[in-house]
């Protein structure tokens, strides 16, 4: 079946980036305000789902050639590594480190190890959601 969906495809290409960058913003906002890895991950995957709706699974797979299973595993590894890192310094599991740094362009910012953990969560959420959607979508 071939339908004429020029407008949908054209809009999706632009809106994808809007949603994607907003999800990054939400991800970064996570520590002190609402947001974080889980919501960010869901937003990102919803952006990818929009692409899947506008085009189709195979096209999206060529554009974003990730193995989502590996993505999930990598995310889990990142989260576990962040949590387990303090064990090697004699601190309890999950101990959180943070400090303030002067970064170029954006000035003084606080950096947290929690963000690495959140990054892991983000990858897991994207990986799992996309695996589910691909698996359901593949069935004819």
């Amino acid at each position: 079946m071939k339908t004429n969906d020029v407008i949908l495809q054209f809009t999706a290409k632009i809106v994808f980036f809007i949603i994607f960058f907003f999800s990054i913003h939400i991800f970064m906002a996570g520590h002190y305000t609402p947001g974080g890895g889980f919501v960010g991950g869901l937003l990102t995957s919803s952006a990818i789902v929009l692409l899947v709706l506008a085009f189709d699974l195979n096209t999206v797979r060529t554009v974003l050639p990730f193995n989502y299973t590996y993505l999930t595993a990598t995310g889990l590894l990142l989260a576990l590594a962040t949590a387990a890192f303090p064990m090697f310094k004699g601190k309890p599991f999950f101990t959180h480190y943070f400090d303030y740094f002067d970064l170029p362009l954006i000035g003084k910012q606080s950096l947290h190890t929690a963000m690495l953990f959140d990054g892991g969560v983000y990858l897991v959420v994207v990986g799992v959601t996309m695996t589910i959607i691909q698996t359901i979508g593949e069935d004819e």
Partner: protein
Amino acid sequence: MNNFLLLPIIIPFFFGMILMFGQKNLKYQRTFALLGIGLALVSAISLLLKVKNDGVQKITFGDWPVPYGITMVSDMVSALLVTTTLLITFFVVWYGFGSITKERERFFYYPGIMFILTGVNGAFTTGDIFNLFVFFEVLLMSSYLLIVLGGEKQQLMGSIKYILINVISSALFVITVAFLYSVVGTLNMADIAVKIGEIDQPGIVTVIAVLFLMVFGLKAAIFPLYFWLPTSYAAAPIPVLTLFGALLTKVGIYAITRTYTLFFVYDLSYTHDLLMALAIATIIAGCIGALAYFDVKLIIIYNIVIAVGVILFGVSQMNEIALKGAMFYLIHDMLIKAALFMLIGIVIYITGTSDLRKMGGLMKKYPALGWFYLIAAFGLAGIPPLSGFVGKLLIVQGGFQAGSMWSSIFILASSLLVLLSVIRIFLYAFWGEEKETKGTVDKKVYTTLFVPTVLVVLITVAYGVGSEWLTPFMDDAAKLLNDPSIYIDAVMKGD
């Protein structure tokens, strides 16, 4: 502060992730799965010895002070259960090499087992009631994967029931935890025990106790709530069935034991009498099921239900002897159920059917299998000196001490029915006329199935004969269950 007690949880988790890479490579999957469980087992055994020498171990995540952070507590009860879990899983995975199909192995079977271990060990170790819920979910998610894996018609029918029941019970669990939180204002289990002691058990706490009994009872399969278990479990392939039968109901039993010996110890005449009545009803229901079916899988599955009743009867007596018996019987039951499932797995492999009436005369061709089955059957029924004996003796002794005369005698009598139900398999399958077998027996596969099974049977024998050496461990566990202040002090006071 001691990260060591986390290793039996983290190692399977880590290996689960490692296994998600390279899922098509069978050799890689098998090696790393066994390696991971082996490493975790070593750490669990050293943890067990450490707990024996230095008392209760605990750690609070993220350096937070105690009632606010998530605490993980490894006491004798949990250390024993964690070690047994890993021991059984090691042999079941090995057994699975010959039994599980290659398609399943390539589709996240081993990561599933690793994550189930993470959940089970975590649930045994956690000292935070909400965290208990989280670990329950981890093990349930992985068990959903394992039960549907393969997608046969019978499996899908069994699993939909399993998933529905567990989703409902999980929702009820969160509601109950919220109830409890609204009453005592804390989630740390030791802190909850203290706060419940302070508020003098109003009616609402009894309500919460009964709600917890329902939630954990669904998982442990106590009397009215066991209906889902036989068909769901029977659908899974043998190694998965073994894992479920040996581990998952035991997590429910552990959770009931923990909450009923730590939190709800002020209204014994209501909560514990209810538990006792349900335990006895569970035994009756299990016996009926075990005697009613001609399907080997279902017979052993109903024996799980009977054992749940026996253990919870011990818990409901609330004295040190009965609790010690319950601990003895709990570990015994995990080992012996694994052994029995593995044995009937071999029988099913040889005959190609699970219907007793179509089997017969296996004794001629497979005498070793027959004898080991007989040993396991006697062990299950508790014929001394095999492993079921000590636990049941102590439970009954505790029952007499608590004044539950008739119900204790009933427990003793139920052993005969258990024996009858498993001997029936022996009579039908191993004795009698030799019948045509449909299955084709590959010598190599048979050995892969037989060796781990024999080792598990030998472990159960050693567990019975060597119960003398295990007594100090069980004593510690029973003391801790009988006197909540040991647990509370260990968690609440300093590092």
